[in-house]
């Protein structure tokens, strides 16, 4: 482990505010004056974050020290498929909904560059819930098309966090797909698993009814009334079903990073035919066990883990069930492998009963 610098504690909130002000002007001061509130690990070396498009997740972090991580994320506005025959003008972080997955380690110094593509129509910014600092970065990153902006933050708290655009009118930017997840791995890392996936729920408000063909404009009144036409995992009907289903094998451990971009609905996240062995409640440090359905608030996340004991098609749903039948809130994990009739069998059980 690295040497740690013990930093004096002050009880004066005023000093804190003043220090924050100095940082806002001078930028990150490195080994100069630091905010006297907590122990921070020294920074060794630097690296560029490898971002992934959903449902993939960057590889687990193996280093046991904090480093300077550069994140480059580009905002792109693009028309994409919402459902068969239905298109929508999405606003994205990195070209996908949800946006690129970002993985850093607790204590890392993150230099975050937000780029707005030159052909965008709108300014955008980013508020990462993992950030301790003004607006989660939103203040520092409001960028016009063709521009970029950088800010630096220390990943103080481990956990799974939502990021989203916070440019007015915020509800439209989020409803158009501007959200994603950033994982701050705890210093000790997360337990090793066989597979990790990334998905986010979001609600969409189109002028046309669900399934109505064509490029569908955003509908203000439906957003205001919180009555979406679509409730989706990863931004499209069928984004994670059929040929696009996530794949796993019997006997594997699976970890899902699940977020809810909203903008309005809370998710009753549930896996049909599977029980969550572990749920990192609200993406934090508290782990609950043997959970059937976990609530994921808008602007919140959860990490869920389970072992695949039998082959099946595990359906991931928002158990507010009309959203599955009528609005698209469905994803799937195809688990292949040998049957285990001691765990599940259609018909009469063959298991021997020991008297």
């Amino acid at each position, binding site marked *: 482990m690295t040497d740690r610098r013990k930093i004096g504690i002050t009880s004066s909130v005023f000093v804190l505010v003043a220090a924050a002000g100095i940082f806002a002007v001078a930028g990150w001061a490195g080994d100069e004056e630091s905010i006297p509130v907590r122990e921070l690990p020294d920074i060794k070396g630097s690296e560029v974050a490898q971002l992934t498009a959903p449902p993939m997740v960057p590889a687990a972090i193996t280093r046991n020290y904090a480093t300077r991580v550069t994140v480059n994320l580009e905002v792109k506005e693009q028309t994409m498929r919402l459902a068969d025959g239905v298109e929508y003008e999405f606003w994205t972080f990195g070209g996908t909904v949800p946006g690129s997955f970002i993985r850093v380690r607790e204590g890392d110094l993150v230099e975050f560059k937000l780029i707005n593509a*030159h052909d965008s129509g*709108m300014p955008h910014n980013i508020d990462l819930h993992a950030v301790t600092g003004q607006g989660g970065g939103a203040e520092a990153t409001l960028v*016009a098309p063709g521009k970029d902006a950088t800010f630096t933050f220390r990943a103080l708290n481990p956990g799974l966090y939502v990021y989203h655009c916070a440019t*007015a009118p915020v509800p439209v930017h989020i409803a*158009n797909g501007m959200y994603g997840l950033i994982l701050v791995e705890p210093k000790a890392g997360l337990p090793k698993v066989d597979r990790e996936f990334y998905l986010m729920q979001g609600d969409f408000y189109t002028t046309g009814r669900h399934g109505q063909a064509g490029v569908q404009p*955003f509908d*203000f*009144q439906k957003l205001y009334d919180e009555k979406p036409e679509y409730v989706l995992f990863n931004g499209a009907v069928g984004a994670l079903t059929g040929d696009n289903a996530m794949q796993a094998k019997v006997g594997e451990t699976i970890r899902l990073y699940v977020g809810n971009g909203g903008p309005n609905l809370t998710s009753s996240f549930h896996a049909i035919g599977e029980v969550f062995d572990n749920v990192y409640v609200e993406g934090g440090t508290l782990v609950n066990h043997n959970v059937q359905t976990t609530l994921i608030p808008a602007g919140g996340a959860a990490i869920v883990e389970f072992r695949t004991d039998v082959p099946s098609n595990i359906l991931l749903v928002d158990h507010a069930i009309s959203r599955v039948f009528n609005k698209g809130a469905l994803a799937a994990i195809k688990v292949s492998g040998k049957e285990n009739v001691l765990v599940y069998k259609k018909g009469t059980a063959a298991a021997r009963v020991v008297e």
Partner: protein
Amino acid sequence: MLRRIAIVLLLGLVPLTSVSGTGPVPRGMARIAAGSFRPLYGSHGPGTTTVKAFAIDTVAVSAAAFLRFTEQHPQWRRNRVSAAFADAQYLAGVIADSKRPVTNVSWHAADSYCRARAARLPSTNEWEYIARASETDRNAAAQPAFKQRVLELVISARPGQFRLGSGFRNAWGVRDLHGGPMEWTSDYQAIFDHSAHGSGHAEKTMACSAGTVETGDASDYAAFMRYAFRRSVEPNSAPANAGFRCSSDL
């Protein structure tokens, strides 16, 4: 005696009418009558903001017209302009097309163009005042269908493909306010002065979203987008999503 009184009255009327804004309307502009309204930002308290009579271009400045200006004023050519007045995006990809609005122009360049025409950029309040007009109503701001239509136009705007005059002509006779490039205004940043530091911006944004005091209509999302554009740019920014039109006192 009566005749003398009539002459005095007439003489009195002449300066009065010019003060109240009924002077001649410059060519290519539409006359906008004085009025008051409540803008999204910049109106303090529950009161409204008053706009004097003015004139404004019926369409935005074309790419061809702007490039002619740069020929007459070489300091505004792409290869000559100071970085302090226009960034690297200035006039990038702009060709002399009279059918398309100029984009990739900085506030400084737009301001200078209008001055060369003995005109000026419209104020933000003037721009927002006329932006409320539908084809038939000078004030359609309270009509949800109009707001939704404007919002769709703004979201689906393709500034690089927009053709001058292709947008709707509003009740003032002004075209293309919604659906084309965003447009520079003279005082686009002053609007935010009261919240230029610290958390003011975020608070204001969220407070506006919540429809609290000191805001206009929090359901006017297209207006939020215009103000977000204004907040995102510096006077030397020359983004591909913005052009301008000129206005004039009356």
